[in-house]
């Protein structure tokens, strides 16, 4: 079981490196976001704004860019492509647990997430953001982002397994927009209108942003980090469990 996960994980990671064309486009939006924020929005919110804790708006927005970078449909797309070309059948007919196919993919998501999150963070730093929690804080930001990416990957994997359709899996990425924008992504919770605030508070993604943002702006705020980690783990468990169930039940 563990051997199979390791083998399939290594293969998926190798695929990531050999198919940069699958990863590079996912970086456009987060980097574009950072650039827009430094160029324009930062004039609206000067660093004297209280909730910016003395930093520029880029720092406030960095977590949003990080989530954009790590939340992808890449694993789902890889899986549906494999279903399409028949290699998936080869894996299903091998004497390994089907769940190792999923775990192999998630392993690659963590590795890819570490890479893209590091890149986005470095660009944010270059644009003037500073991590209040220091170097360990930066490591935590990258780690939490990558974990969230793997947790969220289950969603596209589910779409892939249920629809077996490349376009549908690709389109599943769209869902992330409402999830990401119904959050305190532009301004803090208390600056949102009543309805928006209620929606944002019900949206788990908000707490991931809040946790990452606290590391950037405030340092080690343990309760925010605990909630952030809790949301990541819970989302990961639910989506991964559903994915494993879907693959175990595939054509059965």
């Amino acid at each position, binding site marked *: 079981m563990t*051997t*199979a996960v390791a*083998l*399939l994980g290594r*293969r998926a990671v*190798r*695929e990531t490196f*050999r*198919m940069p064309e699958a990863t590079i486009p996912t970086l456009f939006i987060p980097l574009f976001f950072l650039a827009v924020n430094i160029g324009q929005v930062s004039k609206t919110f000067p660093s004297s704004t209280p909730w910016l804790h003395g930093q520029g708006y880029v720092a406030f927005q960095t977590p949003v860019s990080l989530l954009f970078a790590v939340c992808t449909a890449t694993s789902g797309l890889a899986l549906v492509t*494999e279903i399409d*070309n*028949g*290699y*998936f*059948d*080869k*894996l*299903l*007919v*091998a*004497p*390994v647990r089907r769940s190792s196919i999923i775990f192999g993919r998630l392993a690659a998501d963590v590795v890819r997430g570490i890479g893209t999150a590091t890149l986005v963070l470095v660009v944010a730093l270059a644009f003037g953001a500073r991590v209040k929690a220091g170097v360990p804080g930066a490591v935590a930001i990258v780690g939490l982002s990558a974990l969230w990416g793997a947790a969220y990957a289950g969603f596209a994997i589910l779409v892939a397994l249920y629809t077996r359709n490349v376009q549908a899996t690709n389109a599943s990425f769209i869902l992330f927009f409402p999830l990401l924008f119904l959050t305190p992504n532009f301004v803090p919770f208390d600056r949102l209108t009543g309805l928006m605030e209620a929606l944002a508070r019900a949206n788990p993604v908000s707490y991931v942003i809040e946790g990452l943002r606290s590391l950037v702006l405030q340092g080690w705020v343990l309760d925010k980090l605990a909630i952030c980690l809790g949301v990541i783990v819970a989302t990961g468990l639910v989506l991964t469990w559903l994915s494993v169930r879907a693959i175990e039940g595939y*054509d*059965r």
Partner: protein
Amino acid sequence: MTSTVPEHEIGRSVVTEPVRDDGPPGAVKARGLVKTFKGGVEAVRGIDLSVRAGEVFGFLGPNGAGKTTTVRMLCTLLPPTAGTALVAGLDVLARPAEVRKRIGVALQEIGLDPVQTGRELIELQCGLYGIVGEDARRRAQELLDLVGLTDAADRRTKTYSGGMKRRLDLASALVHSPEVLFLDEPTTGLDPASRLTVWDEVRRINALGTSVFLTTQYLEEADQLCDRVAIIDAGRIVAEGTPEALKAEMGHDVVTVALDGADAGATAAAIGALPGLERVVPEPEALALYVEDGPSSIAEIVRRLDQARISVGAISVSRPSLDDVFLSATGRRLEGADSAESPPESGGDSA
């Protein structure tokens, strides 16, 4: 229709051979296998199969006959709608994990990971079957040599030609020296030389003790390679036996009378009870007469047609082929039979 084949000529009955309850389980034993897809397509309509340990078994049928569906059910990839199947003595539904350890599978749709190299793909395959480290490297090299991919081993599989992909896929089905090997149309799309290579490989694997279940649309492949064949059409097995027995059962010689517009019924009536006539099978635009002695029957056939003032086209004599068996069972010729009828050395399709 006359059918006066002497009893000793019948090697095996044309009707499906029932699976016997006694005896060893063999490589594959299926009974009453049915697959009805969502939407109501009855792909497989209750087939019984019995593949003995150590034999090469051919599953011959036209497009859409249900070959792939059957293979997928036997390989644990698709649950049957009804019926049971034992592969390597194990129930595919009750013990799929154990079945998977014992079978090798090369499906019709060649499934390769395009961004891995051939070597990586085989080594990964080894790992999935519990062969790791130095053993995996050695086994991969051995198999790559075997299928003639040593030079291309370190290229990504997306750069491979169709034939190379097939050979790599075949190699990947062999990493663990399976007890039963399933090959779904292993030579479709191969050039004649590659086809012969695959045949040789199948024979070699079989000689080492692996039972082989292969599907094909090619009569010649079934004839040359298989110890026994089952012919499937529209989800049902219409004939089963050794190629020799199936052909022998058809009769000695087949005289084909091209009708050229003549009426089939009238022509058959005119020929009537020809001496030595074993059976008459109508074909599109022709009549196939199975007779004891073809050459000497021709004169009599021509005389009788003349007498009845029926003019026909060409009259030819040949030995019965598996296509005649198929024709007799279904009333149709096997689609795609033409390309297989030419020997692999000459002409044919290319990869």
